[in-house]
């Protein structure tokens, strides 16, 4: 075909436009500059930025703010709303019972876009615009490394959902964590593979910080378990398709795929694996991050809900599924159904979302510590978080904010045991839980099908 040249193309060669326009080289330079800007602005997110106050509780002069510092856009956009749902649930109960020393609690979302570079200005803006900030929750592995030092420097107590091992032995006085380090979760993934009798495993993890943290420990644990790693694919979560990666996985003939790649990456990969494997899904072992309504909705749409339900296992932190603590949590959370901005999908799935459960506990622990210390100043109340979580000799165990607050009023020592189970903080304020094995039903409900013992994890470590 004859090549047609449209206007600016002529200028692209350096010529000026006939109408006296500027060289298209300038446009090309602009493309180069703005292309990187597009990537920076949209590549990891594209979602909304900044923060927005929760509409559920109107701010009053005495209101305190709980900030959910987490991704609300980008590949990990499902995390922020999950935590926000718990924040709404916990604070609704606290507010309904008088708040903390007369202060009501608001929830505020702060979108980090899942990017440490975006998280820093977002947190700085949070401090500039929120003089009544009482607690920070969220701070996932995506942004924890960049925001924890800032939050700590502002002496704000925080409950973070990061498994990053750098927090195992670094002391941040205002940092609290109710989830285990990523390497333990990597061992849990391998323990699931062992339990299911798999001998050949393919790895497919996203290229974000949080997902890549699993790869090294998982490879070491697979070796220790005598399981062959057939291939290790790193998925660019901003990419559009993963066909070649999927074909590499299929052609390596694994019995299962171990994965965490958030956003559209995992649903796309699983869909392509299924297509390239003759319409047959290869079983998947996912991390706890894949237990979320957003993931189920996207993955079920991509491969079919029954197919996903039949081929999916994930590790998850042990959380209670019955009893007074769970019932209080369930009641609090479900009371907020339809009221939490940005939350879509099957709301009941949040009842078993580990992040949501543990941050609900974190908010309750902080609120009770405020009551106990009769102060909303983190430097004053923060030490009481550990006293309430771990308990002191003779402390009365209580399962909810309401029950614990009543005991505090009576002057009794308490130990809060919420739906996330008992806590045991170490010197670095880490309280690691136990793992269970979850599956999905075709409707998206989460089922617990087994547990992973500490001994099993220990056998795979080191």
């Amino acid at each position, binding site marked *: 075909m004859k*090549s047609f040249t449209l206007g600016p193309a002529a200028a692209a060669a350096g010529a000026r436009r006939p109408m006296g326009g500027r060289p298209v080289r300038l446009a090309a330079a602009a493309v180069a500059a703005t292309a990187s800007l597009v990537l920076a602005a949209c590549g990891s997110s594209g979602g*909304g930025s900044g923060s927005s106050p929760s509409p559920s509780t109107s701010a009053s002069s005495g209101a305190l703010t709980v900030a959910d510092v987490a991704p609300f856009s980008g590949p990990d956009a499902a995390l922020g709303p999950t935590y926000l749902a718990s924040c709404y649930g916990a604070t609704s109960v606290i507010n309904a019972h008088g708040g903390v020393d007369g202060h009501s609690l608001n929830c505020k979302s702060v979108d980090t876009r899942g990017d440490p570079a975006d998280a820093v200005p977002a947190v700085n803006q949070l401090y500039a615009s929120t003089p009544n900030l009482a607690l920070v929750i969220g701070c996932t592995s995506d942004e924890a490394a960049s925001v924890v030092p800032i939050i700590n420097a502002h002496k704000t107590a925080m409950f973070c959902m990061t498994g990053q091992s750098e927090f195992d032995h670094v002391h941040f006085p205002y940092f609290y964590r109710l989830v285990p380090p990523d390497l333990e979760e990597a061992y849990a993934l391998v323990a699931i593979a062992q339990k299911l009798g798999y001998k050949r495993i393919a790895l497919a993890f996203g290229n974000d910080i949080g997902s890549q943290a699993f790869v090294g420990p998982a490879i070491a644990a697979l070796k220790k378990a005598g399981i062959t790693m057939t291939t290790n694919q790193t998925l660019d979560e901003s990419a559009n398709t993963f066909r070649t990666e999927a074909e590499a996985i299929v052609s390596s003939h694994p019995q299962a795929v171990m994965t965490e790649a958030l956003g*559209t990456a995992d649903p796309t990969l699983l869909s392509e694996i299924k297509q*390239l494997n003759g319409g047959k899904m290869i079983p998947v072992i996912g991390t706890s991050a894949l237990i979320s309504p957003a993931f189920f909705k996207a993955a079920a749409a991509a491969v079919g809900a029954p197919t996903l339900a039949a081929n999916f296992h994930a590790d998850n932190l042990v959380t209670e599924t019955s009893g007074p603590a769970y019932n209080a949590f369930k009641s609090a959370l479900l009371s907020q159904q339809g009221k939490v901005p940005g939350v879509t999908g099957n709301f009941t799935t949040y009842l078993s979302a580990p992040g949501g459960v543990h941050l609900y506990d974190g908010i309750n622990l902080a609120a009770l510590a405020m009551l106990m210390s009769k102060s909303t100043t983190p430097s004053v109340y923060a030490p009481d978080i550990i006293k309430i979580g771990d308990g002191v000799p003779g402390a009365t165990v209580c399962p909810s904010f309401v029950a614990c607050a009543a005991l505090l009023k009576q002057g009794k020592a308490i130990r809060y045991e919420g739906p996330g189970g008992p806590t045991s903080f170490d010197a670095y304020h880490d309280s690691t839980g136990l793992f269970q094995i979850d599956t999905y039903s075709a409707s998206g409900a989460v089922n617990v099908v087994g547990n992973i013992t500490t001994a099993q994890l220990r056998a795979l470590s080191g």
Partner: protein
Amino acid sequence: MSLAVSAFGFGLVTAAVLAIASVGFTLQFGVTDVLNLAFGAVMIFGAFVAYLVNVQGISVWIGMLAAMAAGAVLSVLLNAGVYAPFQRRRASPITMVIVSLGLTLIIEFGVQALAGGVAVSYNVNQGRTFDAGGLLLNAVELVIMALAVVVMLATHALLRYTRLGKAMRATAANRALARNCGIRASRVITITWAVTGAMAGMAGTVLAIDLGSFDATSTDLFLIMILAAVFLGGPGQPYGAMLGAVIIGISTEVSAAFIPADYKYVIAFLVLLIMLGVRPSGLLGERT
């Protein structure tokens, strides 16, 4: 080796989707003189329009027609409401780029606010997978490739054999002269926005079909690939864009067969840099 052959086939599919978008982009750029970085956002807008149709139980291919109409309308509105006024005020090219970048964010965030941050999928049967000497392609991928060929041929016919195409070329070459020759340049430009907007809607839908799962940000990286294909072929060169799309699409996928897959875009853009180093005007661009 079989993985490389498979990857070549996957590259052809990527190239097909990329070609539809790149030709639309370069045609728009060439005629309107606007480097519209919101093209990717119009694509995803179209993809979601098709999704809205598809969730009503209607075929996604019908949805694609709705996406094309929506893309055309949105593009015409963008030009009439934003780009044309800026052009009338003789805004500099970099200003127009920044304006288009702002529009990108507005459209994307708007779509995300309406659709939520959750990934969605079309209800579309991918059909059986065909294995031809290691090339693994399913029925939908073959349809997408056929669609790309049709779009390329239609573009060629439009530019070469129709009065509108000739008017577009004339307007692109010299708008003032075209006007003096009796061509209603502003009308041609409006039609160009509509045609290329429809191509954006189509490209967005086939991209979303191809992805299997998409959200409001799914065209972010794809826009960069479009730019790469356009500048590799030579900006304003429809056939250059086709060639650029094939090179970028195939090099992206085939490189993933040999190196860690998260470097595949690095390889593709290295190819672009090297080619532009050798030939700054692009493969089919005119030499000075």
